[in-house]
């Protein structure tokens, strides 16, 4: 079972919810941070890191002694990553998406492979039982999707091998990275806050994710703040509000210390234990549907 925690708007509490679910999860679980731009889940789960892998992308390297400057590569490349000017050929590795087209199309076999560092993938364990996997984009690297693909491949392979459930902390927004983070999931948890910004971005997320046909559940964070439009929307669209986290200063202070919300008090502990059960039954309903 794979649960993705997503939001549309940033800062609504995705990581808070993902960390709390991870420590409350009743079975073997792997917590995966796919917000590779700004991964934060490890700041709360504090895993012991046992493995750091540098993740790279294959980009072209031209052997100029073989190149005839025929331009086939430059004409194919959609990303302006390779250019031929007269009797010179230039590559711009930072623009390359790693499609391999130039290497395949070169009639002289003049284009070989070098790599660009995308970032790192860290594997660790928190509290002796929560497997943790994090992607961390290199500062200055523009493209997150290839690093995310690498982390997702490892996540799927390892969870299957160990029979573990997966909790994904997704990046904010509803563009390609957020969509790919929820693509593998059985259930999507949308975390929102009842403010005008929270509500608007929540409707964007609903619009983006509902065509995937996956069960969605809503967690309202900072409940009591702002206005009530998110509740009306959920009622109208048949979206279950499965948990509310109250707007309280002690919760904000607890978070500011890097502590896990489910461990603040008994009430919250029980609430997240219940949320784990609710999500499991939503995923099961989907299997039967």
């Amino acid at each position, binding site marked *: 079972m794979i649960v993705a925690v997503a939001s549309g708007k940033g*800062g609504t509490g995705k990581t808070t919810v993902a960390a709390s679910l991870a420590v409350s999860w009743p079975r073997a679980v792997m917590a995966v941070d796919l917000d590779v731009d*700004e991964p934060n889940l490890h700041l*709360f789960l504090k895993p012991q890191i046992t493995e750091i892998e540098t993740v790279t992308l294959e980009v072209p390297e031209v052997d100029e002694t073989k190149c005839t400057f025929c331009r086939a590569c430059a004409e194919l490349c959609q990303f302006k990553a390779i250019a031929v000017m007269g009797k010179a050929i230039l590559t711009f590795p930072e623009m390359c998406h790693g499609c391999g087209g130039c290497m395949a199309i070169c009639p002289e076999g003049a284009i070989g492979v070098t790599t660009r560092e995308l970032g790192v993938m860290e594997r660790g364990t928190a509290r002796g039982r929560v497997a943790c996997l994090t992607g961390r984009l290199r500062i200055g690297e523009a493209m997150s999707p290839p690093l995310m693909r690498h982390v997702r491949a490892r996540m799927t392979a390892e969870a299957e091998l160990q029979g573990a459930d997966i909790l994904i902390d997704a990046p*904010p*927004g509803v*563009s390609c990275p957020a969509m790919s983070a929820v693509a593998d999931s059985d259930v999507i948890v949308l975390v929102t806050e009842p403010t005008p910004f929270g509500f608007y*971005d929540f409707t964007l997320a609903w619009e983006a994710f509902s065509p995937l046909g996956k069960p969605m559940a809503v967690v309202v964070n900072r409940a009591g703040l702002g206005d009530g439009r998110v509740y009306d929307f959920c009622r109208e669209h048949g979206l279950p509000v499965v948990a509310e986290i109250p707007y309280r200063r002690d919760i904000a202070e607890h978070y500011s210390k890097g502590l896990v919300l489910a461990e603040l008090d008994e009430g919250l502990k029980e609430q997240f234990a219940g949320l784990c059960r609710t999500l499991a039954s939503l995923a099961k309903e989907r299997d039967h549907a």
Partner: protein
Amino acid sequence: MHEIVVISGKGGTGKTSLTAAFAHLAESKVICDLDVDAPDLHLLLAPKVVREEAFHSGHEAVINADRCSGCGTCLDMCRFDAVVAGGDTYRIDPTRCEGCKVCVAFCPEQAIDFPSRHCGAWYVSDTRFGPMVHAQLFPGQENSGRLVSVLKKEARRLAEAGGHDLILCDGSPGIGCPVISSLSQATLAVIVTEPTPSGVHDLERVATLCDHFRIKVAVIVNKYDLNADHTARIEVLCREKGYTLAGRLPHDNEVTRAMVRCQAVTEGGDTDFGLHVRHAWTTIQGLLNT
């Protein structure tokens, strides 16, 4: 021409609320919402659209089932797992297709079309604070930074035509492509953070990105009274790295109240929070001319 980009690394630290307040306080400017994925500034500024443009970027592969012989070349060559087998033929999953054209070029039946991709829309609008440029990407589209570049170019054109000496931009979270695009030609990055582990961690990453591009940094600590230790850490970081600490704002519901009223937090009477924001803006203005 000055260009201020308000960013944060971490989402939800208060970028948009502060950008709206600066838009209220700045004299003559063009306002620009560079968060094209989940834009919110329009909720406070109620823009009246005067011009709308479709945004096309790149292309996408579409397999023509009638011509597909099912040879599987596209499946073998696609590095993005965008080719999906369906019966005797294949189709492309548009959410995975990066528009690289490899399948189009190598299909022996020439059965793959390559139309341009309609990714969203962008707008020029009027607001009570002046002209605004903004956009909305369709869900699931690649946020490549190209739309950000289009908006910045249009904002610059409007500023030059209208004699405005400031472009004020609301940025997006993260440190990837859209943020890198938004920093190009920026005079000053205003980084809004909060005294939490995530706030500090993400501030360090996005500020390093600004250093990398040699862009001057000012930092605003929102909710500074939530955690004295982290606020102190941020202040030390600013001193060590030479970032200007432009303001410390208290944890205050006034931000949400203003949002519910669809107002900037400095509009509608002087509040304690509003005064802090005005003070931060004065500091930022001072930085533009040094």
